[in-house]
């Protein structure tokens, strides 16, 4: 039973602080259960309620385990985190003694650690430091139950600061290994970013997500904004509702020839748990382990991207798309039935136009002239097979994927090979660092049409409806009533401009943090050692060398700290030492000082027993008494007392 003690609340506080950041990706049911249990624990501690027995808690623990596993698709990291969140508060409910409390606090540390799999931005790191501070203060209080909490926060801070040099040394010198030790635990959350299909509505969901998808640094000039098409995937198969990648029929792109129009750049891609990498249209070259360019100019990596990666690529916007000579058969495939009105219109328009190029112009003109609307919240399309018809002739309002899907449909219906490309368009340049931040809200879909004269040609039907989308920003392109959010505030008011400056600064800090700290690896370690003057010949030499330096540095640190912590040397009392020397000499001749004898009594005793020593002893003892009791003696006086004692020779025992 919890009695209203001083410990339950801080521990509960630590649990709450450590669990809260996980709420964004654990199941809402688990989160709700956590909230309930926290409330119960807080009330139980405040009103001294009886707590559930161990058996009941065991049942709860079993339910938690089953719930965590079933709600997060088995043994995933999310499931472990959810389980930890529940276990921590259940453990608190059974806290009866030091052991339970210690285990609870250690569970809190585990909860803090669980966060490392879900992002490593500066904000996450700072929050993590704060929770470590709080949890450590709680750990101290668990061990010093009578202590007040606020000073313990200070002590925890002192501990963290003192631990900092160790952390730094270990972080710099602990050998890093490429790749993992074994298979990584499956991470369930498909990180934000689009999936490998485009239908009617899934990119619009991203439009309000301002998370950074990747950051780009150009070696030279930044290309104009309407050229910033970031190619992700190419979609071939249309089933009437969704465009999919279909079975892979791709082969690697042959090595390129250098071209003066080449644009070289570096991309730092946030993990998205998918296999593709983004490149500027059209990539000619990409350099990253296990990643290669395919002949549709998309980049693919065998292992999904589960951690932040940085890669260099070269693109050339003028590159004629590969496979000019032919197109695959499936670039013309459409479902057998459905969308009769669209098919009819495609036929009519194609018949009226003299060729592919003109037909494309006519379709774009159709989009431009009919009352099409660019919006994030299109009226829902009814169930059925004729989604393209519904969009083109009834709703006429949609986001980029609506336009791209129906445009590609119209092309194929007229017998022109077409495909949908998904990726990002645009990017915001950061004034603090010379880079471009491409956010999830920049997600975009466009089309490519194959013409005999040009090969694959990029056509962005969205630009026909909302030209501002390509030259400006999503927000400029959207109707006014949809931009009344925080974002429009940021882009249209002076205060918003200043705030945006701060957001840019924060993004810059994060990008630096990512580049300089979070991507620290064996390469940086090797150059760090070279900077120290310890060049290495091969990468096999690195780990042992690092281990040796690490051990030495740790030892030095410990010694420095031990010196700092050494017990204070007690001040030597020379007067007392001299007096004890005198007493020892007297003891040797059989006249020990009795415990209760003060110096003067002792002197009297000596004078009685050994009148021959009386003169010397009197001089010495009275000198001692003066030094001892009449204020502190000067150093030279103490010195003369010492020499007196040294010279004093009681002779042999009487």
């Amino acid at each position, binding site marked *: 039973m919890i009695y209203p003690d001083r410990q339950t609340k801080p521990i509960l506080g630590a649990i709450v602080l450590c669990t809260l950041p996980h709420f964004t990706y654990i199941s809402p049911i688990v989160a709700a259960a956590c909230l309930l249990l926290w409330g119960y624990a807080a009330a139980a501690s405040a009103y001294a309620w009886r707590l559930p027995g161990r058996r009941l808690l065991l049942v709860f623990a079993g339910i938690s385990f089953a719930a965590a596993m079933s709600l997060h698709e088995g043994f995933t990291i999310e499931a472990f985190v959810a389980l930890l969140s529940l276990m921590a508060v259940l453990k608190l409910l059974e806290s009866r003694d030091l052991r339970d409390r210690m285990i609870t606090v250690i569970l809190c540390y585990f909860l803090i650690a669980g966060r490392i799999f879900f992002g490593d931005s500066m904000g996450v790191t700072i929050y993590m430091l704060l929770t470590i501070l709080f949890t450590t203060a709680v750990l101290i209080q668990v*061990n010093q139950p009578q202590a007040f909490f606020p000073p313990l926060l200070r002590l925890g801070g002192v501990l963290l600061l*003192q631990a*900092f040099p160790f952390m730094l040394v270990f972080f710099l010198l602990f050998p890093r*290994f490429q790749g993992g030790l074994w298979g990584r635990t499956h991470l369930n959350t498909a990180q934000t970013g689009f999936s490998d299909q485009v239908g009617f509505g899934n990119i619009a969901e991203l439009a309000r997500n301002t998370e950074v998808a990747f950051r780009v640094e150009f070696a030279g000039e930044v290309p104009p904004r309407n050229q910033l098409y970031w190619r992700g995937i190419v979609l071939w198969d249309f089933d009437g509702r969704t465009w999919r990648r279909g079975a892979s029929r791709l082969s690697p792109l042959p090595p390129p020839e250098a071209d003066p129009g080449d644009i070289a750049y570096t991309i730092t891609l946030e993990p998205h748990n998918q296999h593709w990498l983004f490149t500027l249209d059209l990539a000619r070259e990409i350099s990253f382990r296990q990643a290669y360019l395919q002949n549709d100019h998309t980049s693919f990596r065998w292992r999904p991207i589960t951690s932040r990666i940085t890669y260099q690529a070269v693109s050339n916007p003028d590159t004629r798309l590969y496979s000019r000579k032919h197109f695959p058969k499936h670039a013309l495939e459409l479902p057998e039935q459905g969308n009769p009105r669209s098919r009819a219109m495609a036929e009519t328009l194609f018949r009226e136009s003299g060729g592919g190029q003109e037909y494309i112009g006519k379709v774009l003109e159709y989009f431009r002239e009919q009352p099409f609307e660019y919006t994030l919240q299109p009226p829902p399309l009814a169930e059925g097979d004729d989604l393209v018809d519904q969009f083109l002739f009834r709703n006429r309002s949609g986001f980029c994927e609506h336009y791209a899907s129906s445009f590609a449909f119209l092309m194929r219906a007229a017998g022109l090979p077409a495909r949908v490309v998904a990726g990002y368009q645009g990017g915001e340049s950061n004034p603090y660092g010379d880079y471009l931040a491409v956010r999830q809200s920049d997600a975009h879909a466009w089309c490519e049409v194959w013409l005999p004269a040009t090969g694959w040609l990029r056509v962005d039907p969205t630009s026909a409806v909302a030209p501002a989308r390509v030259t400006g920003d999503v927000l400029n392109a959207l109707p006014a009533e949809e931009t009344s959010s925080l974002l429009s505030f940021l882009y249209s008011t002076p205060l918003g401009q200043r705030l945006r400056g701060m957001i840019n600064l924060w993004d810059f800090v994060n990008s630096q943090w990512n580049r300089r700290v979070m991507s620290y690896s064996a390469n940086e370690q090797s150059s760090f050692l070279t900077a120290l003057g310890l060049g290495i010949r091969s990468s096999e030499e690195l780990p042992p060398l690092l281990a040796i330096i690490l051990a030495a540095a740790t030892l030095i640190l410990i010694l420095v700290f031990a010196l700092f912590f050494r017990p204070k040397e007690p001040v030597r009392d020379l007067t007392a030492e001299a007096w004890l020397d005198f007493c020892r000499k007297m003891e040797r001749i059989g006249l020990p000082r009795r415990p209760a004898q003060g110096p003067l009594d002792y002197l009297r005793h000596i004078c009685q027993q050994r009148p021959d020593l009386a003169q010397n002893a009197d001089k010495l003892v009275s000198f001692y008494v003066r030094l001892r*009791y009449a204020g502190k003696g000067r150093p030279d006086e103490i010195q003369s007392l010492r020499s007196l004692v040294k010279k004093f020779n009681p002779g042999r025992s009487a």
Partner: protein
Amino acid sequence: MKGSVVPGSSDFQARSRTAGKQRLPSAFLRQSILILPTRYGFIFLAMLAALLLGAVNHNNNLGYLLVFLLGGMALVSILHTRRAVSRLALSPARSKPVFAGQKAIFAFTVKTSDSACPAISFQFVEGEPTTFILRGGNPTSAQASLNAGQRGLLRPGPLVVAATYPLGLFLARRSLPVHAICLVYPRPVPGPLVTVPGPDNRENEGDAGGCGVEDFSGLEVYQPGDPLQHISWKSYSRGQGLYTKKFEGTRGKSLYFNPDSLPGLDFELRLSRICYMILKADAMRAPYGLHLGNRLVKPGLGEKHKHQCLRELALAGHKKA
């Protein structure tokens, strides 16, 4: 005690006695301090190992930062733990006499030159640990107990001082010599009261004229210290003030307890029986004396008298302390 009291020395340790040797306080600071992980320390280290494996496997730099920060914290906490016990100074311990079989409690003050307020546990080698929170820089009262097994003088060994301050992950332990002696009376063993006449009756005739328990002899004005059960509550309730009922014992015959009056018993058992008799007589407020070999305590009453008699019993057969 031989000269180990250094007059004017502010250090408590200066007053501790060690095997009759004269030593300076600093000598005690050279004691070795043992540091071990507690079981939570082991759990914590296991947790760090698990996190480190996770960080290595995922090549996660944030994980490395976290593990090394927590590891550094554990490492630094060892120094704090060590410091908590290294700067302690103990005063000599005081203790009240106890009966054999009881717990002897030694009270002392602890001082630390540190501003920290660690919880420190004190324990004699064979005793149980008790924990006290130090008040940083100020002397703190503390105590440690030990079971008193045999009568006589109980001199506990060094005091084991331990702390897990601040994180509870490591335990620092050292033993501090502490000057402590406890007088242990024999264990009282119930039995009939057996009295013997004094060694010289004539000499004692006047002495035993104190208060007896047998016959009521009248009321006297209450004096502080009179036993409560002898107060005349009846007259008090009548509003006549506080009076004490006086009883007359057997005049001229003082009671003496003597182990020799219990033949056929083990000497220690005899002392235990006598101990019981003394306590009984004291409770009845019957004057008693003690005749123990060549030592004689004249009959009397009161706390001081009782303790004098019990002390004789405790030290019977010992060298006079």
